[in-house]
């Protein structure tokens, strides 16, 4: 199965992926608020988050993560487009956004522009072999 592997330790927070993603899905217009990948930035840490299936309502219970000794709400790194936060929803229409790997075969533009190596596409070769 194609996957985008995220190594947050390599992410430099340049957000070029956000620009590339929105450009791909909006006929060349750039708008990070419409990107299906967002970089969660806090202090000196950057966490790329790629949108998954949307949800209609907020979770009724939550998990807290402890990362580098700091506590984070589950929403922070959640992949869902959810009514409780503006991420992964079009700001003007509220339409939910979900990563589609930029088509089939997968050609994710976020990975293409990521020079730091934080994003990597894996599992494509493996799938080709299986198909053969």
């Amino acid at each position, binding site marked *: 199965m194609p996957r985008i592997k995220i190594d947050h330790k390599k992410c*430099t927070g340049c957000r*070029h992926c956000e620009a*590339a993603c929105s450009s791909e899905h909006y006929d060349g217009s750039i708008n990070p608020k419409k990107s299906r990948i967002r970089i969660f930035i806090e202090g000196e840490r950057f966490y790329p988050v790629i949108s998954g299936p949307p949800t209609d309502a907020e979770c009724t219970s939550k998990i807290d993560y402890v990362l580098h000794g700091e506590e984070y709400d589950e929403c922070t790194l959640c992949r869902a487009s959810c009514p409780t936060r503006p991420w992964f929803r079009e700001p003007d229409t509220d339409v939910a956004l979900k990563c589609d790997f930029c088509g089939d075969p997968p050609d994710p533009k976020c990975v293409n522009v990521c020079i730091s190596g934080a994003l990597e596409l894996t599992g494509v070769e493996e799938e080709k072999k299986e198909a053969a």
Partner: protein
Amino acid sequence: MHAWAGKILRVDLSEREYDIEDLDPYFAKMYIGAQGTATRILYDEVDPTIDALGEENKLIFSTGALVGTGAVTGIRSVWAAKSPLTGGIAFSNVGGYFPAEVKFAGYDMIIFEGIADDPVMLWIDDDEIEIMDADHLWGKDVFETEDIIKSEIDDPWKAMDTRIASIGPAGENLVKIAAIMSDKHRAAARCGIGAVMGSKNLKAVVAHGTKDVSVAVPEAFNKSVNAALGAIRASERASKVFPAYGSAGLVNFYNEVGLLPHMNFKKMALPEAHKISGQAVADGYLIRNQGCFSCPMSCGGPAEVKEGPFEGVSHRPEYETHALMGPNCGIYDPEALLKGNNECNRLGIDTMDMACQVSCAMELYEEGHLPESDAGMKLNFGNGEALVTLIQQTAYREGLGELIAEGGATLAEKYGQPDLFIGVKKMGYAGYDARNAYGMALGVVTSTRGGCHCRAYTLVREALAHAFGPKEMAVDPVSMQGKAEMLMMMQNMQTALVDCAGFCQFSMSGQPPPLLFPQLATATGVNYTMPEVVINGERIWNLQKMFNLKAGITKADDVLPKRLREEPATAGPGKGKNPDVETMLKYYYMLRGWDEEGVPTPQKLAELGLEGQGL
């Protein structure tokens, strides 16, 4: 319009009103963005003879044309005004995230006019503009200001996507070397631009934007972006060395060739430099590297000193800060450097001018001109704690800080040694010793904003090409031959194609001009040719020169500091010699189409479409 948002936000702080104007497409094409558009507006609307800290000055934030398009490193923008430091035109370049957020809110430029009667901040949330009271922020440092503003936003997600530019106590106290800081550690530092913001009682500008930025020919644009990224990937220096060590990765190299100044430009090529190199900071203190919006080179990043007197998390300094705050102050302790850099960021001060003042104070002290009783402390070269104390005193105009805050040779004059301030047009000299690169000597002297190295980075050919290639680009650093031509070409091109377009100069080590031009042309959709873009740069340069001439800055100010003119180089290719800037200058003026006094001739102005703009 494409790439440009097409709108200018004009804010009258005295009346607390604002207007939104259209950006004229022809104006945008001719002046591109950033310092270009800002220069023309300043030239047309601000009398160069006014008091820079008075009501008539205008403070302009102007984004580069490609900001927000995803062009590679397309983020650089400027804050511009008449400078309270030099008295000439001021434009201070900055990256980070803030400029892109302004563009995504739908504005290419923000023009601030007048003076608010009480401290205010400007909120921009797409079309919703508000001028709000900022009494509770006045007196706070830059970091506190950003934290407080973000904590006041109800929605934490929106707070995360909100970007802030602000001044610290230095700007509030009208310190003439104050910076405007954004994203906490990104500085629009030079020319004392922070004091202009302070004089307007404007504490902060807050931006949140959700609009699209379009490009004219997406397919061709994406191709040009990919070509540039490919070239950066292929360049060891751009994709490996720069992210790892930042621009300060060149400290060791520039020390070897005698360009890194030591002890207020008294010495060069001392072996201690390696202790304070970019490598030393990266290996010992860097937490991670960090990039501005759409920049793969990520030369910044947080760095931490874990214990001792300089403990704390700060940001990796840039080469200039390394050079001037380190070796030029005789400081070879990276921890003192990191602390000094962080204090400047926190209080909102230009690290370069601050460091030039400190190295001057240290020499005054060591030579016995400045008594310890006046300083209230020992000011010997290498004293990191004195550096930190002087930075704090300057922000609050206490002790020697009162003199330092006035910038230029104020401190040096007070102690009878004006020539110990190393600077040009009252601005502290950049961290490259002119005695080992004559093109750079001429460049700093002719820069339209003062003692600044970044209007044309001749060292690409005078130093870097010798060591890292391409060899055919290398020129003799201490020959005068061809330097005026080379410099003028670089100034014109860099102004338009790099600075106004919004590219970062650092990126040119990976994406040279032939890769920049297609990004600009396909994003804006303007049917530019490369020579047209360069002529736009020349036009902008001439306007800046005219502004300065009208402000009273003349040929007499196009002069190297006495030390660099008269005391011969002690190492490097120029050993035993000094650059003859006067000779080069004559030729440079002639090439520029300026008269012997450096005044653009009516013919030159007419040729550039600037008829009737002469003195």
